[in-house]
């Protein structure tokens, strides 16, 4: 009997969400990496004793589907976890996403030692080793070049934290001390979660807590299924390509049947020797993002939201990569393309609900040097696709990320760089009844010799319009040399910059929605 009254349901939904929220706040407050503190590239979740996710603090969509995978991987590795035991994992092939994302799972028990459930949190660490600072080297052809890979390992048990294991993890980073700080923050967050979960069990009783968890998931399931029923039954296909070589294809078939949806990525290309491979968890997260957006965005985020969704992908493909494929950018770029492919498919079912394609990239930009030593990394917003109800936003992060920019006044204080232009890229959004948003122009002068690395997409294939709307303008990457000459750069790669050279990144505009009025 896992049903609650309308009142209990709402009260317990708040209580469980509060546990995840407090974990997220504890993590952000005590972390050291700017990725966690400022960019909020982290998440926290609560699971029942069967490893079913019952609440999640939602900060960044790309973690949606991968948190449950981490708990499953921990349980698969160790069978059952004794209360108090904590397991760390970042292995992308075993519940991770890309190597910098470290997840710590903790089993929570009551005073009698009975398992109540699990709490887990994930944080993007600034460096986990590998061939380049930041652990996302553009040149990686296999995962060993991207940093330390951690299969599920026990990092704390009833005796306390395992110093030896923590030292091993930290020692594989360029900034071991910082790793210790971030790991400490992750332990702190799990401690808060475990304490709150025990308080709830004390108040309700262990079995009642378990039933409440089931009821809250069932509630989300009901809400989402109600929304799925409004999507016309049928099979919808779409495909799009990543800009690597002659193009790497991602294909999806979406089947809607009553209150269930099946997404199958059959037809997608094999995994590649470039770091744009998405592991299954990333593909699942991208699918969940689109599903949540188009069904019930406000349903309490838990396993129930996705019971009506099934996602399959061919093994060893670019959307379900296996060892030894490199995966660092699958998280940041391929995830965006998967979203586009799914929106394209759903648009056939829901022409009056689905927006046109957004910029479809995070425009990863990295400038650094060994002497003077600095490393500037950021992702740039662009145009959002026009939606059936409004124009797209300009100069924003879309789909799988939502991190903030670095102010010019902060950047020039910290790095030998000067920002000369940071404006909207006028008229880059696709035309339409509801036009696409404009991309951005970011023009940065190097004040010292340094290296530029770019991981960008949508430089050739434009973000598409929908329902008669025009395409957005593809992005452009340029270098304006100190002598005034201009070179166009490819979408991905590493280049040398001399003092006085300027990099100019023009990010893609969003596609337009609907035909523009002719007047």
């Amino acid at each position, binding site marked *: 009997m896992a049903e609650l*009254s*309308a*009142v209990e*349901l*709402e*009260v317990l939904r*708040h*209580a469980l969400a*509060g546990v995840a*929220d*407090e974990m997220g*706040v*504890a993590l952000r*407050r*005590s972390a050291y990496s*700017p990725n966690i*503190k*400022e960019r909020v590239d982290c998440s926290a979740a609560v699971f029942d004793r069967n490893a079913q996710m019952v609440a999640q603090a939602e900060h960044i*969509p790309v973690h949606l589907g991968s948190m449950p995978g981490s708990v499953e991987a921990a349980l698969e590795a160790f069978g059952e976890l004794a209360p108090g035991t904590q397991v760390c994992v970042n292995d992308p092939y075993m519940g991770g996403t890309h190597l910098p994302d470290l997840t710590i799972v903790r089993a929570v028990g009551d005073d009698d030692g009975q398992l109540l459930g699990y709490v887990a949190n994930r944080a993007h660490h600034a460096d986990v080793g590998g061939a380049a600072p930041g652990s996302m080297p553009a040149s990686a052809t296999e995962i060993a070049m991207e940093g330390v890979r951690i299969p599920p390992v026990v990092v704390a048990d009833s005796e306390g934290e395992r110093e030896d294991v923590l030292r091993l993890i930290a020692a594989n980073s360029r900034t071991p*001390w910082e790793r210790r*700080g971030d790991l*400490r*923050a992750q332990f*702190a967050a799990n401690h808060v979660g475990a304490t709150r979960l025990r308080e709830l069990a004390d108040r309700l009783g262990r079995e009642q807590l378990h039933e409440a968890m089931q009821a809250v998931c069932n*509630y*989300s399931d009901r*809400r989402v299924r*109600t929304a799925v029923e409004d999507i016309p039954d049928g099979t919808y296909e779409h495909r799009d390509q990543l800009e690597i070589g002659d193009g790497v294809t991602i294909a999806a078939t979406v089947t809607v049947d009553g209150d269930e949806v099946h997404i199958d990525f059959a037809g997608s290309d094999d995994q590649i020797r470039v770091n744009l491979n998405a592991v299954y968890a990333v593909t699942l997260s991208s699918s969940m*993002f689109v599903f*949540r*957006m188009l069904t019930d*965005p*406000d*349903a309490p985020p838990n396993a129930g939201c996705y019971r009506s969704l099934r996602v399959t992908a061919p093994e060893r493909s670019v959307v379900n990569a296996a060892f030894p494929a490199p995966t660092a950018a699958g998280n940041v770029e391929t995830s965006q393309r998967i979203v586009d492919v799914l929106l394209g498919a759903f648009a056939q079912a829901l022409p009056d609900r689905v*927006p046109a394609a957004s910029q479809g990239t995070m425009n990863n930009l990295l400038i650094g040097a060994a002497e003077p030593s600095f490393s500037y990394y950021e992702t*740039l*917003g662009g145009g959002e696709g026009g939606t059936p*109800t*409004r124009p797209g*936003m*300009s*100069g*924003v992060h879309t789909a799988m990320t*939502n*991190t*903030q*920019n670095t*102010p*010019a*006044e*902060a950047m*020039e*204080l910290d790095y030998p760089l*000067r920002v*000369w232009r*940071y*404006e*909207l890229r006028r008229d880059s959004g696709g035309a339409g009844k509801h036009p696409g948003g404009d991309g*951005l122009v970011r*023009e940065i002068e190097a004040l010292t010799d340094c290296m530029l690395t770019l991981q960008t997409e949508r430089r050739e294939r434009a973000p598409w319009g929908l329902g008669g709307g025009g395409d957005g303008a593809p992005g452009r990457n340029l270098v304006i040399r100190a002598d005034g000459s201009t070179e166009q750069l490819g979408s991905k790669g590493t280049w040398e910059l001399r003092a006085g050279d300027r990099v100019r990144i023009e990010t893609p505009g969003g596609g337009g929605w609907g035909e523009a009025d002719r007047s």
Partner: protein
Amino acid sequence: MSEQARAGVDVGGTFTDVVVLAEGQRPRAIKTPTTVDNQAVGVETGVDEGHDGDLALVAHGTTTATNAVLERKVARTVLVTTDGFADVLEIARQDRPALYDLTVTRPAPLVPRDLVVTVDERTGPDGEAVRELTDDEIDRVCDAVAGLEPESVAVSLLFAYADDTHERRLCEALADRIGVPVTRSSALLAEFREFERGSTCALNAAVEPVMRRYLSNLAERLPDPVITVMTSGGGTAGIEFAARAPVHSLLSGPAAGVVAAGAIARSAGFDDAIAFDMGGTSSDVCLIRDGQPDVSTSSEIDGLPFRTPAVGVHTVGAGGGSIAYVDAGGALRVGPESAGAQPGPACYGKGGDRPTVTDAHAALGHLDPERQLGGGLQLDIDAARRVLADLPDDTDGAHGVLRVVRATMVRALRKVSTERGVDPSTLALIAYGGAGPMHASALARELGCAAVVIPPAPGVLSALGLLLASPRYEASRTVMADSDADLSDAWAELEKAAGEELERQGVASDVTLTRIADARYAGQSHELRLEVGDGDDIADLLHEAHTAAYGYAMTGEDVKVVTLRAVAEGRPALEEPPADWEQGEPAEARSREIGVEGETVQARVVSRAGLSPGDRIEGPALVEQRDTTTLLAPGDVSEVDDANNLVVRFDG
């Protein structure tokens, strides 16, 4: 200050509240309808009603600036900024407001792109001129701005906080050429981060003419008393400053109540507390430490950020008028939709046909059935029961509605306590606003607070807070220095600026100065606010504060001093909240059947006016007073303390 009469006047959405303190008289509270088109009319009415002699001081809280922004009824404003950064307000921080909800979009920038003028100039991070600003360029910009026929101008150039030479020259030329107010970013907020400084500057420019018009009208209506205006940060400012820098009072609405809640907490013997103000459509909560409200320098209004100090209030969309319904998944939800003042709750008999929180209280007997609602209307308890009966059986009717709204509130209270590492068992819950005292005891029990404190006059706490707030001004400047750098010149300059500004406002006496440094470890990008005493080492202070906030310090790391602040503060008009309010005639003690926690019990009904220090009331009971009712559950024991607060203490 001599013992002349002083008034606190707080303008709310429905009522303008006035508290008058006159020599030899008990404090008086007056409520008069707010005059929406020009709040000054209602203020004058309220002040006249409250006092017939000379007034020395009117301490004023107004939502004129707030409403102007919310309704976008602001001045036609031109933004002048550095070439290459024309879209600084629209790009903002490049994040979107909602992750999954496609219907949510960003607010339009306060200054549209066609009212932005860019300037060929550039200052660098060390204050050096990277591109000189020429006289020809100044002429060109003045022409361009004049051609746009602005009512107000905002000037925010890149790195002007590091060196304001270009901004000053440009602003002087603009002021000479165009007869409209000019807001200079480096004068308003000499801090880094171009979007936040630009947004603060544009907000100020856009409301300046509106606020100036309002305040000069008010000064004409009240020519005699000194007028001070509440700021968002819980201080007061002189009327000329409030007209020139209205961005400082954008969020003054909740500030006064929170200041008073801090003073009330102290009067009841608590240093740390949560202010809990529950109104008709929403509730505000704010953490109080050492009697002082939490102050943030990062706030926003309707999606538009500003960086002047503001009390750290957390708002949730749940209040007395919040509507209860069952959603598609079968859960009972309450709010954020509200019945508002029109039609209002069903029990007000003005056509409301959906159940609200107030209806739940009416149906459970918490509200006096004889109560007059004004306009000859009487509480319609049958109507409340009728609309609640429309909810499905498993919602448990009125009890269910109250449990759900409590769950929402508890989550809000946790946000300002446990999520900040503060143990609720050390806190008192200071409840006010029309509905706060009705929910306080249940909330405090659930959160595990030490006590609930209901002030003697909870309905006019904001107006009282205006008199308890100190004149205050904070001068700041981003210095971006190492912690061992010699900052004495910068401190001296800031203290002089802060002290002079407060002196110029003419509202402060016995001015004290406090030094605050925003510092962080090298490589981090969010700062901690540190109070710096004589001889304090900023690095040590950071280690200490970092440990308190996050559980550890990084003693091996370099410490960056980002921004220095000097706070000048004068004496408040009133040092302590008064205890001896005029409460009217007490009604006779009665008893009534009410519903509490799913049970039906016989509750005592007592009149607050009849209570004096030392009196004890045991729950179940209702303590009624003019504009609010306190509900005491079975087992609650309340006592009136020496300051006339009604205090409920909880063990353990």
